[in-house]
């Protein structure tokens, strides 16, 4: 039956003692207005007492019952006695629930609103707890890595190879696109400025130094954050939601060596290679612009490597390895520490992206400062 087509009608029978309100038809969420009108009209007559008859109401729903109860209460609040004639037998238990005053006193958890210092203190405690958790996690990773070095057979090499494929070769198309475009953009932008000084040839030096020392590892980190860290976080977080992590624990398998280490080792190993490809594609982009400007291949290559030393390449590769380690461990950390609901997967992915970008940039700043003072 389609309740939306139901109707409610009413009639008022006035006697000196009382006003009888007779309802007929359907008392559903679609007929609330006629019910309110009926009570309104009855109250305007200022009766001594109102008696409500629902014998002719054939269709009921819970909203109709709730609204009938509310109308009765409102009438009584106006000091007009109101009497409801017995409802059909099958509605007795439902009516007793609806008219129970405890219904409205549904226990809403008391939310304590914190202010000022309390709020600040709570935030500090939250951050301190996260920092503690992160340190514990880092400690566990180091212990597990040490144990894997001591007993190399304990590491799942098949998994490591699988993630190497996922992080490395599968990232190359995106690395090619971003690298070559960044190289082109940088070369065009700097060529415009350097041309006015007649120093166009130095575009190659500028782009190569920027890419090898800074942009290569940083762009690689951004690509791996989007492609890999978020995937790790979502995958492990979904496992947390499905109690798979608990299942591993009760089977005596520690999630760190089983889930985190293969991902972490693979990413840390292959990240420098991805960064190297990023450098290569960036220089290729720059080379295309330089060739178009009329410089010979030999001159371009000579200029590109004239200001670069082996130390620059080594520091860049070490930096990339650290970025790879951070990206994988942050992704796994947020996955392992996610809540157990569907929203948690999205939340852990977002947290991973934000954390990765912030921590990688901070580490990059640290590296640059350190290398500057070391003179590398």
């Amino acid at each position, binding site marked *: 039956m389609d309740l939306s087509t139901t109707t409610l009608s009413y009639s008022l029978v006035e006697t000196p003692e009382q006003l009888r309100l007779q309802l007929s038809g359907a008392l559903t969420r679609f007929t*609330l207005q006629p019910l309110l009108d009926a009570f309104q009209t009855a109250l305007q007559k200022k009766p001594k007492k109102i008696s409500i008859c629902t014998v002719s109401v054939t269709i009921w729903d819970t909203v109709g019952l709730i609204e009938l109860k509310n109308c009765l209460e409102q009438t009584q609040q106006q000091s007009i006695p109101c009497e409801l004639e017995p409802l059909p037998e099958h509605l007795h238990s439902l009516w007793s629930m609806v008219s129970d005053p405890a219904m409205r006193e549904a226990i809403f958890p008391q939310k304590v609103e914190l202010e000022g210092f309390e709020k600040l203190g709570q935030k500090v405690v939250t951050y301190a707890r996260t920092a503690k958790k992160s340190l514990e996690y880092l400690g566990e990773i180091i212990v597990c890595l040490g144990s894997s070095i001591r007993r190399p057979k304990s590491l799942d090499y098949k998994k490591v190879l699988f993630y190497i494929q996922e992080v490395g070769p599968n990232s190359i198309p995106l690395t090619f696109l971003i690298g070559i475009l960044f190289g082109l953009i940088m070369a065009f932008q700097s060529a415009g400025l350097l041309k006015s000084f007649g120093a166009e040839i130095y575009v190659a030096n500028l782009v190569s130094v920027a890419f090898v020392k800074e942009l290569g590892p940083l762009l690689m980190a951004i690509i791996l954050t989007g492609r890999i860290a978020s995937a790790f976080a979502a995958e492990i977080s979904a496992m947390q939601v499905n109690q798979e992590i608990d299942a591993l624990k009760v089977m005596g398998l520690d999630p760190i060596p089983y889930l985190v280490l293969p991902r972490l080792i693979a990413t840390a190993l292959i990240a420098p290679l991805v960064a190297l490809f990023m450098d290569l594609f960036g220089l290729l982009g720059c080379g295309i612009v330089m060739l178009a400007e009329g410089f010979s291949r030999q001159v371009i290559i000579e200029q590109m490597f004239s200001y670069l030393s082996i130390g620059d390449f080594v520091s860049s590769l070490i930096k990339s390895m650290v970025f790879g380690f951070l990206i994988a461990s942050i992704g796994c950390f947020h996955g392992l520490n996610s809540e157990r*609901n569907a929203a948690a997967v999205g939340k852990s992915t977002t947290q991973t992206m934000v954390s990765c970008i912030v921590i990688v940039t901070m580490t990059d700043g640290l590296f640059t400062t350190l290398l500057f003072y070391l003179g590398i």
Partner: protein
Amino acid sequence: MPPVIKVEHLNIAYGDFSVLEDANFEVNEGEIFTILGGSGCGKTTLMRQLIGLEQPSSGSIQINGVDITNATEESQKIIHQNMGVMFQSGALISSLTLLENVLLPLTEHTNLPENIALECALLKLRLVQLEKHAHFYPANISGGMIKRAAIARAMALDARIIFLDEPSAGLDPISHNELDKLIADLAHNLNITFVIVTHELATITSIADRAIMLNNKKIVAQGSIPYLMHEVEVPFVKEFFTLHTIETQQNRKA
């Protein structure tokens, strides 16, 4: 009174793989109707067709006289507002509390004032004895509670037909019995039609009015429960009830 659900010559197939052939049955208003059969015989698939989530290969499914197999989007929406579904896993939205889960259809499909909608949602939770857990998240309650909350959500809009997929699967006997009692009370007090996919004999014998039995892509028997249990001569039906009865007796002895 015309039947609330009328299925005629229904065929369900996935590509060349046929699941159900030439199914015909009717469900009357206010009755507790069960779809029985062994595991993997297509009970849940049939239910998914009845609730309009999947399209059959051929045949018609009429809900309150409207053929949902070729209904417009608008009329399908109206049909869906008049039916409630409890999925096997409960399918509560995990980021919402139980109260918010029950409130969701009320706020999306009605223009009820907030206090009435809230009172209505609480009443539904009270009907399934979960009012004290209104602010709990699905992750923090037991499997039986999730099923009861899913029934509360299915009743949110005062649906006249409620479909339940394996409501008592995985529940302990006490929770199972309570759930059966709840279904029977709701059917009796609110005249709700229940279509239950199950193979629990306790549910079938204690609360069901009529049933269909699926086996080998066909409806092999249909009728009242005493008729299916004692009069039908189809070997599968006889075996189904005999084995279940023996199992129940053994459980009692144990």
